[in-house]
Each structure stands twice: as structure tokens, then as C-alpha cells.
């Protein structure tokens, strides 16, 4: 994908440079060349770069490229970390996309909604968090809505016999399924990002406790 994008960009650039350097009057032939150099090849470049770009927005590297997400990204990359986010990052199914796999919207318009939510994050980053020191942002940044248990349940169905045999699962089944009790809460599996919870914890339903 990348090489297709770069190659078509190079071809387009070559056509355009030749056009700019040869100061001839514009003829039918040069218009055809320009159709290639301004239309066909740049559109190829844009198309492939778009796909690669949207793909990139799902990677941990991308999420970690705003400094306030460095603690989250570093923890996920730490092979010794026992946080939920990190244990899931070590699984190949999540791997480099572990942030996205847990945090994406799983609904029908999930992809678009996730991207819109991401744009909001970028906006907030530029307007509020760009200069915030990490020590502060770790406590100031909290999840807007609790991460739905339904996201976990896309993989951990809550139907497996061994899962149901766990006493705590059995006793809290209803509140787990309807999201009143967050799987990633202090009494249960712990926070997904425990290193940010020092000082400002979340309640057991995943909401910010006041």
C-alpha cells in the first residue's frame, strides 16, 4: 500500500515538475499529461494514503503520539505490566491496536463514531491538554462515559461455563451484563490503567466518583 502511494506521488511530481520547467504553451497533449499529474496519480496517492492514515489511527503508536497518552501507551508496551490494558496488548489479537480494540465503539456506526470521538479528542488536546504536564493529566483526564462492559463482552461472552462457575461472576451476572458493575473496577479486575488512578478513582460502575 505504502509503495503504491509513494510511487504514484513520485510519478505525479515528475509530470508536474516537467510541466513547470518546460515553459511551453498548453496544448491538448500537455493537458492529458496534466490530467495524469493533477488527477489520476494524486487521487491514487490520496486514496492509498487515506487508507493507510485511517489504519494508522488505530495503532497504539498513533494514540501515544499525544504526550498525555504516553503513560497509557508505555504501560501497554511494558512486558512486565499486569494492567488489563497491558495483558491484552500482549495478545496478538490486540497487539499494536490494543487501545482501539478496547475503546472503539462496537455499534453499527462504530467506525464513524469512533473517528468522530477521536476528532473531539484531538480538539481537546489542542485546546486544553497540549501543555499539561503528565503528572497533572494522569489525574485530570478521565473517560467521558464508562467503557461499556459490552465491549469486553464482544470477546468474553459471559456465557462460557467456566466463566459462570467463578462465584463472583455468578453472583453479579445481572449487573455485569447491564453494565451497572464495571468489569474494570477496583473490586473486580482492577482498572485497565491503574497507573492513572492514583488520587482520582472511578466508582464501581465505571463513572467518575465525586
Amino acid at each position: 500500500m505504502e509503495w503504491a502511494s509513494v510511487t504514484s506521488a513520485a510519478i505525479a511530481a515528475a509530470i508536474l515538475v516537467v510541466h513547470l520547467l518546460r515553459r511551453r504553451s498548453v496544448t491538448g497533449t500537455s493537458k492529458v499529461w496534466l490530467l495524469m499529474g493533477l488527477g489520476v496519480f494524486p487521487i491514487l496517492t490520496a486514496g492509498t494514503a487515506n487508507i493507510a492514515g485511517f489504519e494508522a489511527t488505530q495503532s497504539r503508536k498513533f494514540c501515544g503520539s499525544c504526550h498525555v497518552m504516553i503513560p497509557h501507551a508505555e504501560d501497554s508496551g511494558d512486558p512486565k505490566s499486569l494492567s488489563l490494558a497491558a495483558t491484552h496488548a500482549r495478545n496478538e489479537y490486540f497487539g499494536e491496536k490494543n487501545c482501539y480494540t478496547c475503546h472503539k465503539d462496537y455499534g453499527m456506526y462504530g467506525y464513524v463514531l469512533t473517528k468522530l470521538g477521536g476528532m473531539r479528542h484531538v480538539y481537546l488536546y489542542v485546546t486544553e491538554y497540549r501543555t499539561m504536564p503528565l503528572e497533572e493529566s494522569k489525574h485530570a483526564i478521565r473517560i467521558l462515559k464508562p467503557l461499556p462492559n459490552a465491549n469486553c463482552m464482544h470477546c468474553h461472552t459471559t456465557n462460557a461455563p467456566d466463566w459462570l462457575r467463578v462465584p463472583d461472576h455468578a453472583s453479579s451476572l445481572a449487573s455485569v451484563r447491564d453494565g451497572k458493575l464495571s468489569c474494570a473496577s477496583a473490586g473486580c479486575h482492577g482498572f485497565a490503567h491503574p497507573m492513572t488512578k492514583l488520587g482520582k478513582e472511578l466508582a464501581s460502575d465505571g463513572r467518575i466518583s465525586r
Partner: protein
Amino acid sequence: MKLRLPPSERLLRIACVLALAALPLMVWSLFDPTVWPVLIALSVGQGLGTLSFVLFLVAVGRDLHVQRKLATRIRPLD
């Protein structure tokens, strides 16, 4: 007020320069897939690229229009 566009030849040169600015912006995001390169590629890069192609279409469209007009004017003299 009527917007006066530069002659087609100039228009096409402007389009070339815009596209030459847009292409590296789009390619940059491939090599550094982090927030600013990707965002700039998808906004400024795409925007400039689209604008350059639109200028091309405007120039070609206008030339065709002029040619057609000339053709209809010349015909009665045949």
C-alpha cells in the same frame, strides 16, 4: 462582482504548484503515522490536492467553452 480567474496557462501552473505542495504532505503521513502528520495529510494535503484538480478542471472546461464559442462563430463564414 465577477470573479476574474487568471488565464488558463497561469491557472494550470498554480495547480501544479499546489499539487506539488500537497503530495509530500500526504506521503509524509505514511512514514510518520502520528497525530499531526496524519491529520495534516487528511486535511491540508487532501484540500490542496483537491483544489489543484479543481483548478485543472476549471481551466480545461473554460478552454473547451472558448473553443466551442469560436467554432460557432467561425461556421457562418464557411
